[in-house]
């Protein structure tokens, strides 16, 4: 009950000092739960880093149902939590409802698009990071066939797949990109067995680099790729260490950094839109001691060139969600 006590204390302190920013921040995890090995866990890691560095405390909840979204937001806001950090696009419409009622509370919406004076909206250029992963995949592939495994078939995942396919085609226009989605229920984010089966099916179609953007399902994909002797690409966090020498790279989405920064700025954080793209290092490909041997100098050069071109604006990676279509891949 320490959380409860500190919360009560904080609420009382706020009441006494008439609105001084003393309240704890709050973090709302989306339906996947905080240990999803991916998006929510990255947020958790960012928050833990902040806890270790500052000794601060934060309130948290893992949502279990859509109806809890508004409830959690309002209850945290009423108890004086500030800022309130929310994960995922599904929170956007709830924030649009709730945030105007609490003008002194700052809300952070990661992956959202709410446009309000007390909301900080953080989005990531997943298509640009995936493009770089695609460039590496095409360079590493010997068969000319690479593949993609998504979690659920939702626009966000198509954005990953579309950027990846564009990257592949930029190196080898004749390459084949095989794309599959794991399932149609939220279980698809945490189904390593199905991920493994899909990876096997794709390998039998000739794929020798498999990119998984499927949360916990990706663990099964990476395992199977390693067992079958082909390369894989991890997602969100740096997953290179899972199978050293067998994971080509990881498409990193620095949710942890975003959460850490929001907690560090506290109630003073700047509201408005923040797009964390390649230029801002919000996305990128991981190269470390675990995959050094796989990354040739040529590959490094092409990735660097592609990165520079995107940052400079010479190459524009098409964003699937901008018009619901993809030039390089059909769904």
């Amino acid at each position, binding site marked *: 009950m320490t959380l409860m006590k500190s919360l009560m204390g904080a609420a009382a302190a706020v009441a006494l000092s008439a609105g001084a920013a003393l309240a704890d921040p709050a973090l709302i995890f989306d339906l996947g739960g905080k240990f999803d090995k991916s998006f929510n866990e990255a947020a958790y890691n960012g928050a833990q880093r902040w806890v270790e560095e500052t000794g601060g405390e934060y309130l948290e909840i893992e949502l*279990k149902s859509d109806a809890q979204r508004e409830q959690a937001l309002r209850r945290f806001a009423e108890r004086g939590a500030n800022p309130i950090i929310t994960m995922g696009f599904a929170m956007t419409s709830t924030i649009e409802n709730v945030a105007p009622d609490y003008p002194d509370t700052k809300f952070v919406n990661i992956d959202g698009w709410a446009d309000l004076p007390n909301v900080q909206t953080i989005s990531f250029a997943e298509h640009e990071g995936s493009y770089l992963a695609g460039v590496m995949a095409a360079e590493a592939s010997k068969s000319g066939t690479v593949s993609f495994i998504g979690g659920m078939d939702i626009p966000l995942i198509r954005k990953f797949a579309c950027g990846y396919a564009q990257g592949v085609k930029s190196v080898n226009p004749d390459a084949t990109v095989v794309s599959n989605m794991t399932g149609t229920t939220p279980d698809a984010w945490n189904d390593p067995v199905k991920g493994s089966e899909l990876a096997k099916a794709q390998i039998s179609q000739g794929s020798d680099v498999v990119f998984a953007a499927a949360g916990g399902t990706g663990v099964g994909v990476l395992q199977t790729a390693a067992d079958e002797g082909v390369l894989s690409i991890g997602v969100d966090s740096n997953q290179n260490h899972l199978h050293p020498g067998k994971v080509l790279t990881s498409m990193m989405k620095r949710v942890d950094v975003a959460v850490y920064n929001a907690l560090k700025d506290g109630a003073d954080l700047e509201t408005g839109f923040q797009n964390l793209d390649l230029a801002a290092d919000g996305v990128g490909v991981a190269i470390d001691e675990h995959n050094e041997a796989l990354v040739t100098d040529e590959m490094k050069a092409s990735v660097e060139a592609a990165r520079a071109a995107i940052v400079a604006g010479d190459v524009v990676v098409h964003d699937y969600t901008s018009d619901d279509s993809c030039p390089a891949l059909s769904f």
Partner: protein
Amino acid sequence: MEKMPKWADVVLIPVISLLLAALISAIVILLIGESPIEALDLMVEGALGSTNGWGYTLYYATNFLFTGLAVAVAAHAGLFNIGGEGQAMLGGLGLAIVCLYIPFPHWSIALLVAGLGAGLFGAAWAAIPAYLQAKRGSHIVITTIMFNFIAAAVLNYMLVNTLKPKGSMEPATGRFPESAQLPSLHDILAPIGIEFSKSSPANVTLFVGIAACVVVWGLIWHTPLGHEIRALGKSERGAVYAGISPVRTVMITMLISGALCGLMATNNVMGEAERLVLNATEGAGFIGIAVALMGRNHPFGVFLAAILFGFLYQGGAELALWTNIPSELIVVIQALVILFTGALDNMVRMPIEKIFLALRKENA
């Protein structure tokens, strides 16, 4: 002669089962180092202590009311409908299509027509497993659960490719027009001077659910069709001997069951979210099984059980908000309630029957 009085069967046994479940939950909470009394206090306070809490409790209860009734109706015919999840999903789809594409002058007409759309889609989704069961003997448990997955796939496809507004990241429909949004309990109770929380999701469909309870009660016990349904459930051979067509009865029962599940969409899709999102049903179809089991397939029992599960859901959410009790433990508590009230029924029933028999002997 009855082994024990009716009140013991209907009230005493469920209450004892609940107390046992609560006791074991308390031990589990103690084991992870939290105070069970404080937890119970938080749950009661959070779910019943304010109109806001009541609003959420009743909102969840309304969902379970529809799915619980659906399972109960099917159970009277000896059919185990575990496809409530898929039927409710399709109900949401039918409702969303009606609400998005037909302009309505007033919410009451919208509710009527959208409810019809939801019921039709839900019934249609139940019709195929029903036909396969009635004509081919494919077991309804297998087919309905498979249809849950197909429903999820259909919904996913429709939302991502057809119903999603262009350029939106979220696989959900746009918001329904103003005239298709239902009044909340706040709007209904304000004119008669009762102050009810504005932000809670309970809405007018609660009364639709209660009306559905009454209709189901009348249908099962006071119509010829209800008699046929119960006869089939007790003994198929007997029903055939009495001139009841099993094919026809199975079809009609499942259509009613599916329509009830579909109607749930008026609460969660039309009343709460006001748009159709992926995974809108959130397991209410499965909770309906527990609710029907606990309510002994009687509409009034279903009503009480739905409120209880609404309380567990909302109280559980409050626990997750304000304590370190992990949300998985709330699932454990719910599971214990289902286990004791449903599966382990005889464990409580037999000793109590013995006590009553012994008492009767003494009196005689």
